[in-house]
C-alpha cells in the first residue's frame, strides 16, 4: 500500500518517471475510482461473460501430464443487478459452487471475464484488486468448518479489519464487532466465546457478520442454509432478507433447495453440467419453465402437501448426471431428456429467448438453452 501511494505522488511531482509506470498507476487509480463509485439500484453491478473453469486431470507424480479436464464451468454468462438476489440452482456437479469460487477469485478462471462495475476483476491486481475483495464477500455452506475453531468470535469477525485496516481504526474495531453481532441477532457479550459454544444457526450468523464487516456491496452465499435445521433455516433466511434491505446488498444465492431459492430470489438461473440451462425471473422459471431440465427438477421437488402433490405431474428422470470430465456432445442434458432428437447431439443450444416466444410478452419469453423449448407448468396442481 505505502509503496503504491508513493508512486502516485511521484507521478504528480516528477515528470521523469517512465511512461509505463505513469500509465499503470493512472489506470489503477481510475480502476479504484470506478470500483468505489456507487451503482444505481437496478443497474448491473456484476457481469459474467463466458466464464470457463477446467480442472486439469493429470497423471504421473514428478512429471505431470495432462490427460483430460473436468469441465466444471463451461461458458457461463449472467448479470447481477444492484440490490437484487440472483438465485443459482442445480444438482451436485453442475458447477454452481465453482462459479462462486471464481467470483471470489479463490480459483483462477480458465477463460472468460467478470466485470465488477465495468472493471474486469480477473485482470486486476494490487490496490484495485484489494478494493474489489472488500466489496465482494462470501457466506459459506458449512457453519462448522468455516469458522476457525481456535479463534474467538471477536477475532473471527474482526479479522476483515486486520486485513483491510483502512476500514476501521484499531481502537474502534471491538465496538464494531459488537455492533455486527447485534445486527445479526447475537448477544454482543459473546465476543470472547469460541465457535464450538454455538449451535449451527448461530455459527451461520457469525459467518454472516464476518461477511458484513467490510460493508460489501455483493455477498455470494454458497448454500448458506442447507446445513441447518428446518426451523432454523427460516430464521437465517429472514435475517438475510432483512440485511439486504438494511445494507443495500446484492446477493448471489447458490442453493440446491428450489423452494428456498424461489422465496429469496428475484431472478433465478438453472445450471446443468457447467452450463446455464435457463435464466429468468422467479415467476418465469417456476411458473413458466421452458427447459426440460428445469421442468424435471421442479417436478421432483418433494412438496410437504400431499394434496397439492397429487395433481402435479411428476417427471422422473432416468439415470444420473454424466461426468463433467466427459460431458455429452451437443446439449448436455440430452442423455436424460425425453425430448432429445438427433439435433441435440450435434448442435449446442444457445442460451437465448427461444424463437417461438421472441417478440411476444408471455412469461415464457425468457432465456432458455433448449432446441425444443416449450412451456410446461409442473409446480401447480392441474
Amino acid at each position: 500500500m505505502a509503496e503504491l501511494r508513493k508512486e502516485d505522488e511521484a507521478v504528480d511531482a516528477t515528470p521523469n518517471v517512465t511512461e509505463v509506470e505513469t500509465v499503470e498507476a493512472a489506470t489503477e487509480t481510475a480502476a479504484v475510482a470506478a470500483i468505489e463509485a456507487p451503482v444505481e439500484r437496478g443497474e448491473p453491478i456484476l457481469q459474467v461473460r463466458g466464464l470457463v473453469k477446467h480442472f486439469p486431470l493429470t497423471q504421473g507424480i514428478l512429471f505431470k501430464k495432462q490427460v483430460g479436464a473436468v469441465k466444471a464451468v463451461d461458458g457461463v454468462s449472467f448479470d447481477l443487478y444492484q440490490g437484487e438476489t440472483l438465485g443459482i440452482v442445480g444438482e451436485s456437479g453442475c458447477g454452481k459452487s465453482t462459479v462462486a469460487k471464481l467470483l471470489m477469485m479463490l480459483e483462477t478462471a480458465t477463460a472468460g471475464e467478470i466485470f465488477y462495475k465495468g472493471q474486469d476483476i480477473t485482470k486486476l491486481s494490487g490496490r484495485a484488486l484489494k478494493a474489489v475483495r472488500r466489496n465482494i464477500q462470501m457466506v459459506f455452506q458449512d457453519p462448522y468448518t468455516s469458522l476457525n475453531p481456535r479463534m474467538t468470535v471477536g477475532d473471527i469477525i474482526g479479522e476483515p479489519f486486520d486485513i483491510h485496516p483502512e476500514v476501521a481504526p484499531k481502537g474502534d474495531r471491538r465496538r464494531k464487532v459488537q455492533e455486527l453481532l447485534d445486527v445479526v441477532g447475537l448477544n454482543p457479550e459473546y465476543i470472547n466465546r469460541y465457535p464450538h459454544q454455538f449451535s449451527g444457526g448461530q455459527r451461520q450468523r457469525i459467518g454472516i457478520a464476518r461477511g458484513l464487516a467490510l460493508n460489501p456491496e455483493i455477498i455470494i452465499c454458497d448454500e448458506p442454509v442447507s446445513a441447518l435445521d428446518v426451523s432454523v433455516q427460516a430464521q437465517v433466511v429472514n435475517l438475510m432478507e432483512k440485511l439486504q434491505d438494511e445494507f443495500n446488498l446484492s446477493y448471489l444465492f447458490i442453493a440446491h433447495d428450489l423452494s428456498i431459492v424461489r422465496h429469496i430470489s428475484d431472478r433465478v438461473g438453472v445450471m446443468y453440467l457447467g452450463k446455464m440451462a435457463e435464466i429468468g425471473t422467479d415467476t418465469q422459471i417456476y411458473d413458466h419453465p421452458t427447459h426440460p431440465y428445469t421442468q424435471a427438477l421442479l417436478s421432483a421437488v418433494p412438496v410437504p402437501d400431499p394434496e397439492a402433490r397429487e395433481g402435479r405431474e411428476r417427471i422422473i428422470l432416468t439415470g444420473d448426471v454424466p461426468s463433467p470430465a466427459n460431458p455429452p456432445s451437443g446439449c448436455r442434458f440430452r442423455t436424460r431428456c425425453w425430448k432429445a432428437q438427433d439435433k441435440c447431439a450435434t448442435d449446442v443450444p444457445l442460451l437465448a429467448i427461444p424463437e417461438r416466444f421472441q417478440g411476444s410478452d408471455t412469461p415464457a419469453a425468457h432465456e432458455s438453452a433448449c432446441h425444443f423449448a416449450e412451456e410446461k407448468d409442473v409446480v401447480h396442481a392441474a
Partner: protein
Amino acid sequence: MPENTSTTVEESAVPVATAAGGAVKGTKKDKPERVASMWSDARRDLMRNWVFLVSAVLILALLVIAAFPGLFTSGDPYAKGFCDLSNSVVPPTGAHWFGFDVQGCDIYTRTIYGTRNSIIVGVLTSVLTTLVGCVLGMVAGLRGGWLDVLVSRFTEVWFAIPTMLGGLLVLAMLGTGNVVTVSLIMAVLGWPQLFRIMRGSVITNKQNDYVMAARALGAGGWRIAMRHILPNALAPVIVVSTINLGVYISAEAAFSYLGIGVQSPNISWGLMISDGQDRFLSAPHMVLFPSLFLSITVLAFIMLGEAVRDALDPKLR
C-alpha cells in the same frame, strides 16, 4: 451418540440484552472488558492447570540442576580421587543414597552432573527436529505442487536411512563426538518424522472452509499460515516432539555405548545406564537411579506438551 448433546449457548433468535443460560462450560461470566484471543486464553488456561504447573516446576528444577550441579552435591565427579575402587558396586547407604558404580564412583553425584549433557541432547535434538520438520512441512503442505513432491521424495529417501547406522557413519568420520555433535546428527537424521506429521496435518487443515474464508477476505499467505493453519496443525506435532525428547536422551546412550557419543570422563544418563546394564540383576541401583531421572524428565516434558496442546484447544476449556 445423539446429534445435539454438545453444549450450545441458549438464546433466542432476536437480539437479547442479557446473557442467557450458563450452559457454556468453563466460560465463567464473560467480563466485557476482557479481550480474549487464542494466545491470551491459552496462557490463562495454563496458569490454572496443575499438570502444567507441576511439569513446569519439574523442568525448572532440572534446568537449575543442569546449570549449577555444584549446588546439589558436594562431590566433584571430575576430581581426582572421587572414585574409589574399594566401593565398587556398593548398594545405596545412608551417606550415599544412590550407591556406587563399578568404578566405585558415587552414583548420586554422577547423576546430578549427568543432567546437563542429557538435557542438552534431549532438548536440542527435539527443538531442531521440530523446527526443521515444521518449517519444511508447512512449506511443502501449503505450497503443494512440485515443491511438495520434491521435498516429500527427498524426505522419503532420507527417512530410509536408519538413525543408528547413519549416526555411526557420520560420527565415525568425525571421530569422538560430544553432546552437540550427537544432537546435530540425531536432528539431521530425525526431522523427516516431524516433517511428515506436520505436512499431513497442514494438508488436512488447509482444506477447511475457514482457510478459504480467510482467502476470500484477501488474507495473505503469511497470515493464513500463522493464524489459521499453524495453530490447528500443531497439536500432533507437540505430542510427538515431547515423546521424542525421551527417545533422544536414551538414543544418546546407544551412541555412547558404541563408543562414538559422549565419552568418559564426561557423564550422561545414557552413558550411566549403558554402563550399568550388564549388572542389572546383581546391582540394579546402577541402572535404576539414572533411569529414574530420565523417566521424570521425559514425563515432565510430555505433561508440558499435553498441557500446551490442550490449552490451545478451546473445546477442552
